[in-house]
């Protein structure tokens, strides 16, 4: 069963590498968006799905990352350096944003982070000397990395997908370490965790900081992907959209954000044939999906596998298929 899971991941990876050769530029742009938003959603899944800290600020971190990388590049900073700087800056800001989480939880925390997102939007819009306000910044170039130009849509997709693989692998590795166990403990029972020697304060701040830095890195890819940024792209809508990806994919499942981002990026495109009604149809489909699989797509898959295993008790535990992500049931 565990092999079945690995086979599925390898097959998906091969598909992801092959698919741009069969798509028009717009299709390549869409799957690049998927790769970028998946990184941001992985960050939110870490903060929310694993560590249980509700955040409506992930979109703001994507914005901070996008503006950081753009402004630094305009100042002559090479892209790789600006990329790292975006991640580090968001790590720092995320750490600070974690402090309210030490005092308030759940929907109270949601409002604190919502206020932060609004604040970031206002700064991006009003500080025109730095951000050009509502006009945004256009003509953002794509980098040349070690002699490899990422100017074409396809090569930029490969760059985004490569970064997704690297960051996802790093996250996977972290979640397998004792830190991953500590994050889940934070979500499940912080009081007990504290009495077992877990410095819950430090782990909470860490969950926020790492999740936010992944948001920032996604932003650092978003800017050269779209080649245009403006404050409205990083307002509350994006934060809600990222939250939707985590919940729809399966919060607390490692591959949840991959699936959730795929649905959030592709579904609106597929229902575009309904013309003017497409957002309504999209919204209705999301509502139906949440009503019938509240634990997300992967939660539903896990249940189905569990049910099948019960009928056939010789198979190994279903959690093995989903690996690290199987912390929800």
């Amino acid at each position, binding site marked *: 069963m565990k092999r079945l899971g690995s086979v599925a991941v390898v097959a998906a990876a091969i598909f992801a590498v092959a698919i741009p050769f069969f798509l028009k530029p717009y299709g390549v742009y869409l799957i690049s968006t998927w790769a970028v938003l998946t990184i941001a959603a992985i960050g939110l899944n870490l903060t929310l799905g694993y560590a249980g800290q509700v955040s409506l600020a992930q979109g703001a971190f994507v914005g901070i990352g996008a503006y950081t990388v753009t402004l630094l590049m305009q100042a002559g900073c090479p892209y790789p350096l600006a990329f790292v700087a975006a991640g580090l800056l968001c790590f720092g800001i995320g750490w600070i944003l974690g402090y309210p989480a030490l005092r308030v939880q759940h929907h109270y925390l949601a409002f604190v982070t919502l206020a932060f997102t609004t604040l970031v939007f206002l700064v991006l819009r009003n500080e025109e000397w730095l951000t050009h306000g509502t006009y945004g910044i256009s003509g953002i170039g794509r980098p040349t990395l070690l002699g490899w130009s990422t100017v074409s849509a396809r090569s930029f997709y490969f760059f985004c997908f490569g970064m997704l693989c690297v960051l996802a692998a790093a996250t996977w590795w972290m979640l397998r370490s*004792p830190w991953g*166990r*500590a994050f889940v*403990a934070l979500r499940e*029972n912080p009081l*007990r965790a504290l*009495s077992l*020697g877990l410095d819950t304060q430090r782990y909470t701040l860490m969950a926020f900081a790492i999740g936010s830095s992944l948001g920032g890195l996604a932003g650092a890819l978003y800017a050269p992907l779209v080649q245009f940024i403006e404050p409205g792209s990083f307002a509350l809508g994006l934060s809600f959209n990222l939250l939707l990806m985590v919940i729809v994919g399966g919060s607390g499942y490692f591959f949840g954000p991959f699936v959730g981002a795929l649905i959030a990026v592709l579904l609106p495109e597929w229902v575009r044939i309904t013309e003017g009604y497409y957002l309504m149809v999209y919204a209705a489909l999301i509502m139906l999906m949440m009503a019938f699989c509240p634990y997300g797509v992967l939660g539903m898959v896990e249940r189905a596998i569990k049910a099948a295993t019960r009928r056939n008790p010789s198979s190994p*535990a279903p959690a093995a298929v989903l690996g690290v992500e199987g912390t929800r*049931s």
Partner: protein
Amino acid sequence: MSAVLEVVNLSKRFGGITAVDDVSFDVREGEILGIIGPNGSGKSTLFNCVLGQLTPNDGEVRVDGKATTGMRPCDLNRLGVSRTFQLLQVFPQLSVRDNLILAGQEHQGTMSSRLFGRADAGLGEAADQMIEFFRLSHLSGEQAGALSYGQQKLLDAAMAFMAGPRLVLLDEPAGGVNLTMLGHLRERLQAYHSERQATFVVIEHQMEFVMALCTRVLVLAEGRVIAEGAPQDIRRDPVVIEAYLGH
């Protein structure tokens, strides 16, 4: 024998109510001290003050002679003071084995060594031994939330012992556990106590359990210590009988 835990003139007030009123006692190395008392007599509040979950209004707590009043629960735990809770406190979606590894992992290395070190923090074997000791081997890979109440109580106790604590405070370990499981739990606690020379403080209502397990008993009523002594003497003490039956 030296005192592992000293509680000196401890008081805790909630508004106008004094939940713990000038309580002093010592816990000596290797003993099993029982704390009994009617509901609302301040037992759990006393525990929470000793363990840093609550900050006492007055008084001092010392562990091995070192003042620990106001210390964070996680720091106190790393000094070797462990606890169980009155209500079940396991991590339902982690496996039994992961619950135990978690209970030990913060006691070694640093934040970064835990990030870059082994996934089981080098505790896999110790966790398996603890699972064996509490006879939960057949449940090792199960999610803790799938266990029966009694089994979760055993796991809860096992977690408290995982880091090899000097002092364990057990808050109603027998509460809600059936008789078979109760005998098993008592026998395991006694086995652990004699094997590791650990020191226990036990809050309990179940008198048989206290009488069989504890070497000394402290009686609380309305936040004060009203009696202290060997279990058989406490049972006959008219003050204790009055406190339990007089209301």
